[in-house]
């Protein structure tokens, strides 16, 4: 069997997820031995027009980028969204809480109306093309990346956690962040990060997005129990989950 040809691309993002791939160090060489890397601008000089697996980081924020993404989609058998910007828009979707005219004026002042500054509301990749697989997180968990790439190379379907961060947080024996009078998004956020943030003394800010069908009622009960409001919860949910379906459900 030929090794699958893999290409990595990026749109509007911080490239922190690609950095996590580099951070695999020796394990990266091991993972790369299962595939044939053909394009990866951040790390190698080669460029290519054909590939089996396209791994795409970043959000779509300009019409021209939609076209580029469609071209990548048409050349790839499997398209993988890498990280929160790609899977759900991430922090880039905070922009969608304002008008585009307003954000342009705020950042560029009087130059904001110039045509080359045009920007569109942020889209996750699956709002433009079909996405076959999502690697969640901001940044991604690179162990999960290695696992998923190995699955793809071997033709297996990876298992992605579909339970809330609270499960992993409890397993690590942490005291609940609500006991510290904080707003934590663990109850509605997809696990798979090993609850790194609450384990370091910081609340979960929801970078892996919602679990499928989040238990909004349970979240409401937690908020009531600790004397918080749903407005408090929504304020923090906006960071990574602006304009997501479930954001609208949290009422």
């Amino acid at each position: 069997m030929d090794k699958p040809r893999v290409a990595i691309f990026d749109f509007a993002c911080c490239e922190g997820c690609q950095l996590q791939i580099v951070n695999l160090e020796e394990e990266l060489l091991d993972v790369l031995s299962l595939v044939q890397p053909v394009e990866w601008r951040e790390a190698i000089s080669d460029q290519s027009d054909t590939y089996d697996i396209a791994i795409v980081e970043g959000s779509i924020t300009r019409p021209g980028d939609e076209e580029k993404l469609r071209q990548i989609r048409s050349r790839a058998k499997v398209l993988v969204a890498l990280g929160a910007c790609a899977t759900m828009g991430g922090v880039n979707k905070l922009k969608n809480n304002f008008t585009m005219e307003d954000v342009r004026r705020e950042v560029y002042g009087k130059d904001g109306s110039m045509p080359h500054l045009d920007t569109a509301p942020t889209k996750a990749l699956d709002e433009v093309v079909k996405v076959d697989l999502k690697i969640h997180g901001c940044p991604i968990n690179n162990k999960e990346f290695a696992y998923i790439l190995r699955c793809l190379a071997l033709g297996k379907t990876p298992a992605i956690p579909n339970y809330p961060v609270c499960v992993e947080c409890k397993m690590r024996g942490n005291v609940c962040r609500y006991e510290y009078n904080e707003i934590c998004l663990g109850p509605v956020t997809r696990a798979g990060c090993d609850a790194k943030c609450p384990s370091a003394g910081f609340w979960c800010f929801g970078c892996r997005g919602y679990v499928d069908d989040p238990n909004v009622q349970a979240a409401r009960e937690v908020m009531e129990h600790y004397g918080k409001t749903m407005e408090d919860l929504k304020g923090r949910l906006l960071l990574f989950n602006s304009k997501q379906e479930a954001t609208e459900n949290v009422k």
Partner: protein
Amino acid sequence: MSKTIDIHVHHITRVEGHGNIVLRASDGRIEKLEWQVPEAPRFFEAMVRGRSFEDIQTIVSRICGICSVTHSFSCIKAIEDAMGIVVSEQTDKIRMLLHYSEQLESHSLHVGYLVAPDLLGQKSVVPLVKSHPDVVKTVIKLHRTGNQWMEAIGGRMTHPVTIKPGGFASLPTEQYLRELKKTLEGIVPDLKALAEVVLSLAPKLPAFDRDTEYVALVDPTHYSFYHGGIGSTDTKDLTPVRKFESVVNEYVTAQSTAKWCKWHRDAFAVGSLARFNLNADLLLPLAAATAKKLGLKKGCCNPYMNNVAQVVESVQVVEHSLQIIDELLTKGIQPEVPKVQPREGEGAGAVEAPRGILFHRYAFDKKGHCIRANCCIPTNQNHANIQKDFEALVPQIIGRPQEEIRLLLEMLVRAYDPCISCSTHYLDVKFV
């Protein structure tokens, strides 16, 4: 015979973010020569409006994956300035320690993974695994050390979570600091080995000098990455960080739609070489010896030597960290819980990113919600200087083969270690 040169490097590789190099010349006459940046702007300054001071770091850390610790610190310092918060000496020291982990991580990534392939005639670090296994092993060890150190104190590799206004969400234990001390002592031989490699490759760095204004944070007590005022090689006085807009003077040019910066001249440079040129006298002994060994002298204005300065700084941050750890262990880690009462105000913060000085400014309302933000990123500040370097360099090398010219221009851009995703101000550029 007429000779036409047409170089169009679309999305230069092995840099963070998207940039293009355009050169068109015939018979030695330059018709077009531009460094362009087509990175999609993300409008962070607009997006943070309305968000609580407690959430700003979480958002703006995402301006850049490779300098997320630096963005976090510029942000937190600006918030603390706005709200009149003074942190403890312990917090200050642990922050420096965390900040140094990013310098080591980023410098070793840049020198080892992104620049070394040029000097060793390869397209990426991957073939180097076979051709130069010892070099790769050293680089991996240094890079991993930086990352694990960052994760241990910052809570995560990339986008730290322990940095809060007023202090830390969780503190490193004394046990960890003792382990870190051992680890850092253990990589000193690797740093020396890296310096040897760079020494052997240094003759391949182009000899190109252009008199340049260098700008960096300056603190009289130590080689600064985190403290101090804004210094320049063109002036003796330091400018307070609160007045950073009067230093960067962002402007729009007719040639490029990206915002550029200038201070005393038509461009200035920030980054390792700038810090070295302003602070070299304050280097610790091993770092100073490394600079001497590598032939790096104060006043150097060869931009390619920025990579050499990065190696010197890698030694400096490890050497200084060992001092800081000793100081922390002597006093013992005291439990501290940051408590902040939000208040109305405006403040600015600056720290040195691996690739140069980074400024943030925020204004908050009574509840601590952000009403205005401004970030000025090092790559923005270097942008005009890269163009000026191009304009000085190309006439010197125009007679060489096109491929060689292309490589020298790419290497020049890489030498600045640009971090283009950082540049929230960058505009879309039409290509020729």
